[in-house]
Every structure is written in C-alpha cells, then in structure tokens.
C-alpha cells in the first residue's frame, strides 16, 4: 500500500509549503525608513518570508536587495528567475518597495582568475543584456535599479585601478538597456564607498572626486537617482559633513556635487549606511548610541533632507553569523531574535518619539 501511494505521488509537482499570504501594508510614521536585506544566499523560503514580515513589522517600507547577475545567468542568454521571484513576490506581499542592486559578473563573462567584480568593456553589452532581461522580467514589480556597487574602490572594480570614466560607460549601457525594457524604470548610479583615500591611492578614490569625474565623463544623462552609502562610524547623524571626514552627513556632500553639476532636482536614496555596536571594533559606538543615532538618522532624512527619498541602513539580518564585527550591524539575529535596536526602531515607527 505504501509503495502504491509513493508511486502515485511521484512525478506530481511538489507542493509549496510557504504561501505568500494576504496583502499587507507597512504602518509607519516615517515613510522614508528602509533597510538593506540580505536574502541573496538565503535558500529557505520561510526565512525569506519571515525576514520580510519582520521588516514590515518594524515599520520600514523600503528594502534594498542584491541580485547578482552571476547567479541568474549561468550561461549566456539562459536566465533562472526562481529565487529573485520568491524574494520580490514576498516583499511586495508585505507591502515593501524593492530597490534592486545589480552586479556580480558570471564566470563566462570574465577571464579566468578574476573576481566577480571584474568586467572589461568587451562585456559591457553582456551586462546590458542582463539588465534588459532583469528589468523586463520585473516590470510592474520593481522600478528602482542600482547599477554596480562602490566602483570607487579597487576591490569592487575587480582589483583594477578605479576608473570613473569606465564606470560611466557601463552606466550608460545599463541605463539605455533598462529604459528599453521599461521606460518607467529608475536607474540609480552606484553608491560610492565613503573614503578618504589619498590622491593616487591604488585602493580607491575619494567618493566626491569620483562622482565629479563621472559628471565630467557625461554621466548626468544616464542616471535618474543617486545611491549613497552613509556610514556614521563613531559620529552622530548631526556631526557636520567635511571633505576629510567619513560620517553620516557626508551624504550632503554627495548631493552638493550633484547640485554643482545641475542635478539638484534628482533624488537620492541611502542604500547602505548606519552604525555598528561591536563591543571592541574601533569604528563602533555603544549599543545605546547606535539606537539613538539610527532613529535620529531616519528622522533627519524625513525632516531635513527633502532630496533624500529613503534611508536603507545596513543590514537587517545575515543568513549566517560571521562571528566578526559585521554581525553588529544587524537588526535581528540570524535566528530571527529581534535585537533591542529593532524593538526601539519599531517603537519609533509606530509611536514617534
């Protein structure tokens, strides 16, 4: 009898045990609140759903998520959207707006021995094809797309000298193909690493200088919005910005570069940022300070920065603990235990101060 039942069930499509559930919406007093989720390497669907439920329950309507090209196009022209569909569909069901970051070069599009951040100009069109396919596939579901990540540091540029002109050419290809797929798509220029790298450094270039060189290379026509990375390190959100200082308000300097280049009408989104409360990391603050600074950063964007559409801080939860200071950027543990910062931000989103 058992064999008969087994034979009858074999070959039938497997039943999904995790359902999308009813449509939800985010309750918050601050519609600019957001968070960077980290679901790229999350295999189990229930964990994806639980993460996004908890983001919604915290009161953050925006998420940034990373969608690596190399995961979804393992061979040229062969796309597998299974995993990103799960992520996006659950996010939308929780009432969240998804900002998709696109990069990570598949092995077939780069030379042997290079990192997934390495993309030479011969393969820009391949990336453009991927952007077209991604934007078209998610038309009606995802509208915001970030092209690449921190190209002003050598690590994110495949350990080559950084190249704002080269990145601008890549941005042009991506922008053009995205608009072909969906004219309503909004293209964000990559969030730049806030860095004080000295002139000529082999490791990176000042974010402010890099952005100006992008403008000089003609980037203005190839992005609709600017992604900004705004880490506070040990400084409070109101610490005044300065060219020689990395703090949260450095975001204002990025915007000033945009204004100087006639782009003041464009909006920015903070797609990474925030504070770390590791007990001994030199760039960390005390956990209580992190709570205060985080809530104040959300408030600052709402009340003072009309050019900033959303603040998506790093990071909601990691799929696995790293056992380093990186674990102390998160809002919930790997096991979904809410940290005090989660509970305090949730209280702010529901009740205000």
């Amino acid at each position: 009898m058992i064999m008969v039942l087994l034979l009858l069930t074999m070959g039938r499509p497997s039943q999904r045990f995790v359902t999308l559930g009813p449509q939800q919406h985010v309750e918050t007093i601050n519609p600019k609140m957001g968070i960077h989720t980290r679901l790229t390497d999350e295999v189990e669907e229930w964990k994806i759903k639980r993460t996004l439920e908890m983001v919604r329950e915290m009161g953050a309507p925006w998420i940034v998520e990373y969608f690596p090209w190399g995961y979804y196009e393992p061979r040229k022209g062969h796309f597998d959207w299974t995993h990103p569909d799960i992520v996006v569909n659950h996010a939308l069901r929780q009432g969240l707006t998804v900002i998709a970051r696109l990069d990570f070069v598949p092995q077939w599009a780069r030379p042997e021995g290079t990192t997934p951040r390495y993309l030479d100009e011969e393969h820009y069109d391949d990336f453009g094809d991927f952007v077209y396919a991604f934007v078209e596939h998610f038309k009606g579901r995802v509208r915001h797309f970030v092209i690449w990540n921190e190209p002003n540091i050598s690590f994110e540029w495949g350990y080559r000298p950084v190249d704002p002109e080269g990145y601008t050419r890549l941005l042009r290809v991506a922008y053009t193909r995205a608009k072909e797929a969906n004219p309503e798509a909004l293209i964000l220029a990559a969030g730049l690493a806030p860095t004080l790298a000295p002139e000529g450094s082999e490791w990176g270039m000042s974010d402010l200088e890099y952005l100006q060189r992008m403008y000089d290379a003609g980037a203005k026509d190839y992005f609709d919005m600017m992604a900004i990375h705004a880490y506070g390190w040990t400084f409070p959100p109101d610490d005044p910005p300065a060219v020689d200082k990395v703090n949260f308000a450095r975001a204002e300097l990025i915007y000033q570069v945009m204004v100087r280049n006639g782009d003041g009408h464009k909006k920015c989104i903070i797609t990474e940022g925030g504070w770390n409360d590791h007990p001994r990391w030199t760039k960390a603050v005390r956990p209580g300070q992190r709570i205060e600074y985080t809530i104040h950063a959300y408030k600052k964007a709402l009340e003072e920065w009309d050019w900033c559409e959303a603040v998506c801080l790093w990071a909601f939860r990691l799929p696995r603990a790293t056992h380093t200071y990186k674990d102390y950027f998160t809002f919930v543990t790997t096991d979904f235990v809410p940290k005090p910062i989660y509970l305090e931000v949730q209280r702010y989103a529901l009740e205000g101060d």
Partner: protein
Amino acid sequence: MREMRGLRRLAACIIGLILIILIAVASLRLLAGPGGQDETWARIQREGVMRVGLDASWPPFEYVDKDGRIVGFDVDLAQEIGRRLGVEVEFANIGFDGLYDALKSGKCDAIISALPYDPMMTKDVAYSHSYFNAGQVLVVRDDEREIDDENDLKDKRVGVEWGSTADMVVRRLAERIEGMELALYDTSEEALRALKDGEVEVVIADAVSVYSFIRTEGGVKIAGEPLTDEPYVIAVRPESRILLKRINEALAIMKEDGNFDSLVGKWF
C-alpha cells in the same frame, strides 16, 4: 567440523589484525596530515620561528601600545606557546577580515586574535581547544550567595547595557521569568557600578567587560556558568595537524600549571 571452526577463527583473527593496522595507519595520517607530514610544523622546527597573525585593535587581547609595540593577552599567550614549543614567535598585524586569507595563503602559521569559533569555517581551517569564553555572564556582588543561574532571577532587578547583547538576552529571559525587572544603563561599566552600589541585584554582561571591571574596580563576581558561549580559539591550516596538537598540548599544560591564570590575572 572442528577444522572449519578453526579456519573461521583464523580468518577472524586475520581480519581483526588488518582492521587494527588500518586504524593505526589512518590515525597516523590524521596526525600528520594528508601528505603524511605537517609541512608547516617541519618548517617551524627548521627555522625556529612560528608566525602568528593577529589584528592588533582589540584591547586587552591585542593592541598597539603608546610605544608602538603590539601587546595584549593573545600576544603573551602566543609567546608562551612559542616558548613551550621551543620556537620564536613573529607577529603579523593583519586586519581582522584578512586573517583567514593570510592563514590560507601561508602569510602566517596560526591566528591568535580573540578569534571566535566559526562552525562554517571548519572545512577551511582547524581550530584549537577554546582558551577563552567571551559569552554573557551573570554578575553579582561579592557577598551574594543565593544567585547562581537564570532561574534565580525571579523578582530580581537586573541591570544591563542598553541595546547590548545582554539587553537582548534579558528581554528574552523576561518573557518567562516572573517579576524580573530590567534596568538599562549606557554602558556595562555603569551597570556594574550600579550593582556595586546596590541599585540592582544582578548584572548581565559579556565576560571581557566583567573581567576588566573586576580587575579595575572589584566588588563583584561572576555567578554560575555563562548564559551564552562565545569561545575564542586558535586557527591553523587543516593540514597543520602536528602544530595543532602541540598548541593544544601547550594550552592544556598552561591551564594545569597556573600559567594561563597568571595571564588572565595580568590582562583582565
């Protein structure tokens, strides 16, 4: 019939002997690594130097003092292990994120850097026995005799640093422990001082902060077993079997002969 039984007994003996030999060979290979020898250990012995990677930004475990020297608990620990192994120790100061890569690429022979045990890394490195547990602990006044574990927290006022891991632990405990009252402080030190002054009856904090407070101000003690574990370990390359064995032996002897406690007393 009797001959058959004798043959069977002989066969069983031969199979048993073969199994014993196989186990012995496998054990030797495990000790010596896949190549039959531990090349790292051979080089350390040949050159008389063990290279230790650390990130000197975590006092009191490892940091750069005002004279520019790398000092700390882990530095002394590494020196003592080196002494017991009969070799000099050279330190390579590497950013924490780069420590594992430095080990893999041979830039160092071992990582001794307040390194938490990471189960996900056990395919890539071999870990020593834990030498320090930096988890959350219960702290009470020196004269307290009744509080020994979390079940004793009923109706107690418990101090923690606001937003810390201890705060998270206490909020979870409060869901099941009746009458427990939470008192929040800006730092662990303030919470511990409040314990000394009688404002709270218990504090929960990480072991490193507590040891540091006991050393500098005193008047409090750790009660019972840690509530959570965060073991610090030494990492070597997986094939460095002999080196790992020697490190574990040195750690065990240091704990037996009191040398380890002296180091704890010096730095915490």
